[in-house]
């Protein structure tokens, strides 16, 4: 079994989004993650990262640590992505799911990304420890 681990710490801003997503996609590619899974994982990580950017430190700016850990063996593998911030305690998974059956006019604009993430990931978790929000997602293939 092969293991790949990458860690970065960035200022949680939208300017860093490309860098964060680049690191993630590079790691997934190296681990042999299928394209389709790769896109769904990326959408999920973008959502969680943008959440940190938008809410964690408002109106200030703080850092976000991202750790990507992938394991692979032949065509199977899994990835675990962890995002840490020192912002206000916030559990993204408690957000209410949007109603996906309403008409266009009645649709709520929020909550879609977290909803997609819950649907697509095999495991998700949240902890608050030592002043840090720790959000993790895991996906197998």
């Amino acid at each position, binding site marked *: 079994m092969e293991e790949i681990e990458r860690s970065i710490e960035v200022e949680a801003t939208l300017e860093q*989004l490309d860098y964060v997503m680049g690191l993630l996609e590079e790691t997934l590619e190296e681990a042999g993650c299928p394209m389709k899974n790769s*896109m769904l994982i990326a959408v999920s990580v*973008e959502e969680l990262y943008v959440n940190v950017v938008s809410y964690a430190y408002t109106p200030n700016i703080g850092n976000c640590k991202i750790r990507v850990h992938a394991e692979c063996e032949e065509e199977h593998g899994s990835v675990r992505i962890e995002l840490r911030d020192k912002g206000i305690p916030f559990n993204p998974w408690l957000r209410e799911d949007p109603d996906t059956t309403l008409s266009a006019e009645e649709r709520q604009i929020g909550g879609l990304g977290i909803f997609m993430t819950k649907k697509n990931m095999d495991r998700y978790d949240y902890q608050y420890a030592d002043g840090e929000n720790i959000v993790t997602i895991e996906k197998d293939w």
Partner: protein
Amino acid sequence: MAIAGRLDTNAAVDFGKAIEETLVDGVTAFTLDMADCAYVASSGLRVILNAQKKMNSLQGTMVLKNVVSDVMEVFEMTGFSDILTFE
């Protein structure tokens, strides 16, 4: 209009502006070609939803063309496929 590349949070801002400038009074049909778009984040979905609402209010139609299968899956899991028109 055609979008190419990643419809991520940053691109969604520009896309939203383009939509706002394009969908003005008198527009009755809007086609969005997504053949070269393989990635749509939730922020991109929001802009697409707003475009659909705008076209509804203009009593016009909106059609998404050449949507790739991975992106279509995102539309399906969010229920967007029920409120959008594809060709």
